[in-house]
């Protein structure tokens, strides 16, 4: 991995996790941060999406976020490149292939699995985070998996099995804690001391932070002995319901 100032990071989603993760990566001075999002700021985002204020409601997250990052980190050497799109099966491999590291803070399982599969196929390290109610999680996978995101989560859950933060609610500062864990994992990768193969979980109500080992599965559909996923196909990432607010 390159030194901090020459590392190119792809950030997927500029929401509750992505906003503070972007701030921390820019503040730390990564070489380049490409940010993917195609959403507009909604008032219900503001309790957790710290790059935005009330005057940004209705505006593009990328434009508002870029202005905030420049205002908050005027001295940062980071080149910030906003790309107004979601991570999609059509663009994922091309977007990831140009980068050294992918950081994913999206709000839906389809994007999380797409990101994990893309990073494995492109042999890129990947940091992934999530937050719902009082709990946030973060993990990083190495370019060769073993273990990878699918060793743990296997397949997309049905829409009725996995509440997102729009349905279940979430505390803003818990999301912020998760973003700090994500940025920490990303910086460890960049600095050459990654913490692959562990998942961190923080329960804000009980104030419990845990680091669990993830186990490689020999029957993992992505990095196992007889992988089923060797290309990115739209049909793999169909999810019956997916909230648009990141």
């Amino acid at each position: 991995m390159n030194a901090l100032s020459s590392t190119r990071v792809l950030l997927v989603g500029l929401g509750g996790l992505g906003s503070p993760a972007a701030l921390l990566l820019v503040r730390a001075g990564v070489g380049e941060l490409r940010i993917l999002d195609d959403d507009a700021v909604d008032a219900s985002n503001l309790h957790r999406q710290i790059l935005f204020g009330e005057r940004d409601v209705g505006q593009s997250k990328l434009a508002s976020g870029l202005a905030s990052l420049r205002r908050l980190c005027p001295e940062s050497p980071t080149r910030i490149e906003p790309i107004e799109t979601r991570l999609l099966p059509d663009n994922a491999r091309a977007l990831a292939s140009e980068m050294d590291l992918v950081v994913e803070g999206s709000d839906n399982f389809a994007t999380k699995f797409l990101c994990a599969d893309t990073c494995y196929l492109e042999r890129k390290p990947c940091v992934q985070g999530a937050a719902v109610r009082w709990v946030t999680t973060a993990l990083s996978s190495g370019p060769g998996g073993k273990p990878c995101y699918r060793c743990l989560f296997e397949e997309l859950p049905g829409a009725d099995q996995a509440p997102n933060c729009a349905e279940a609610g979430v505390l803003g500062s818990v999301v912020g804690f998760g973003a700090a864990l994500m940025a920490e994992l990303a910086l460890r990768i960049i600095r050459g001391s990654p913490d692959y193969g562990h998942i961190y979980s923080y329960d804000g109500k009980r104030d419990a932070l845990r680091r669990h080992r993830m186990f490689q599965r020999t029957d993992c559909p992505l990095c196992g002995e007889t992988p089923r996923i060797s290309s990115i196909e739209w049909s793999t990432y169909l999810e019956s319901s997916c909230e648009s607010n990141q």
Partner: protein
Amino acid sequence: MIMSNLYERQQRLREIGVTGQAKLQSASVRLASGPGAEVARDYLCRAGLGSVSIEGDAPASFPHEAYFQSEVCLDFALGAWVATRQVVEILELK
């Protein structure tokens, strides 16, 4: 400008709801100055607290410090932790 759904996503938490949100909005919090204080203030203001001030007390000791090697991340995590602890305390969830 007051926007009705500013707190909607946290009010969906059963521990918060309308009653908890009212508690948060009538609470006044004083934070110790130092690393993380601005981050904590930002999250608490966004959670709708009545008032949040930063004063020159001793900074909070952070039990999760060992998990963070990056100072940038450590300071932010500390702030998010302080804000979360304040919310838990105001709502008497402990």
